[in-house]
């Protein structure tokens, strides 16, 4: 079994990496980089910081690879490390100072959550597009105002890379609690959008 074989599972690659195969760890990085990056992004809100946190998570995972016993999935273990790193980054004093001086701005100069807004529809009227864009901007802004527990669950559920079980392990909350938080986040958002004049359906 070699790292280049496509049929190699994450566990196989971990065993190879534990034996000193650096290429095997590189393959693990490739397979999990998106999930790790998006998990970090859901927490810190900035792609630049999420990239940094994701790198740190992989470095930590590499150093602690010998402690991984294979009882859980490698990705679940890796995401737990990633979430702890992201939380530490979010709580860091330097980040707080940075946010205080230059609130909600990352290195590119754009708002942390605004930067993720993209892709306008091209098949609709200009007016509809403008209305929808305004709605999207409001939704994005209101997501940033949600309580952290609700926002984290909502964003992690929307990455497309994490199962509810993985999110439950990352957040350290029961599965039912995670699902409730996602539902509650949506309810709060719709209530706030209704207060802005959008029809609450």
């Amino acid at each position, binding site marked *: 079994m070699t790292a280049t074989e496509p049929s190699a599972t994450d566990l196989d690659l971990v065993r190879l990496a534990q034996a000193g195969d650096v290429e095997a760890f590189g393959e693990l990085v490739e397979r999990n980089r998106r999930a790790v990056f*998006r998990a970090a992004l859901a927490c810190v809100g900035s792609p630049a910081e999420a990239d940094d946190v994701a790198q740190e998570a992989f470095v930590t995972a590499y150093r602690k690879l010998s402690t991984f016993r294979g009882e859980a999935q490698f990705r679940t273990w890796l995401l737990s490390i990633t979430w702890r790193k992201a939380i530490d980054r979010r709580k860091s004093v330097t980040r707080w100072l940075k946010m205080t001086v230059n609130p909600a701005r990352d290195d590119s100069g754009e708002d942390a959550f605004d930067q993720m807004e993209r892709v306008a529809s091209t098949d609709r009227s200009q007016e509809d597009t403008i209305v929808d864009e305004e709605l*999207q901007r409001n939704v994005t802004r209101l997501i940033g105002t949600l309580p952290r527990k609700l926002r984290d669950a909502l964003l992690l559920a929307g*990455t497309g890379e994490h199962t509810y079980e993985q999110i439950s392990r990352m957040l350290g909350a029961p599965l039912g609690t995670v699902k409730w938080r996602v539902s509650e986040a949506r309810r709060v958002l719709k209530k706030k959008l209704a207060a802005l004049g959008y029809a609450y359906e």
Partner: protein
Amino acid sequence: MNDNSQRIGGPSGSRLDRAIDRAVRDMMHVDPRPGFRHRVFARLEPASARSVVFPRFAMVFGALAVVLLAMVVVIRDRRPDAGVDSVQHGAAPVQTVAGGAVTSPTPTVTAPAPATSSHVRRSGDRPTRRVTREAIPMPRVTNVFGTRTTGAAAAAVPDMDAVWPATLPDSRDEHASPIAPLVIPPVEAPAPIVIAPLNRRGPGL
């Protein structure tokens, strides 16, 4: 790719639900910049190099510490002791003070013994005193109170001048006069106490 976009409460959803889904998707469906793997490995290399560099720095600092310590020891050894020029050699007459007889030893000024070891004077240094390292022998005290006489006597210590020389050579003053030996007169025995008998014929007695 796992899709958790199926909303709780129904797949069709309202306009707001769709807007929320779209906003979350736009926020989270982001990939890291190209070269992520390279950046991760770049972080791994300094960590491993650090583990090699640190012992090297530790060795360098350890060597420097040893050199500094050696320099401190050498400098301390070379520094002359203040007030100590040399230790006299040769025995002076024993001074015994007993009873009323006082024998004053002849003041002798012995030439300072050559230093057994002396440091090398470097050019430009101020004149330094010789430092001898000859051990000063401790006297063997035989009778602190001297011979048994009627009077008290000072301690009789053989080779007293070896311990406390009659003269203290002073390199600064070569013509210093010798110090007279200390003479302690003997203590006279007290007069016997005579108690006169009482007069029993006194009143009231």
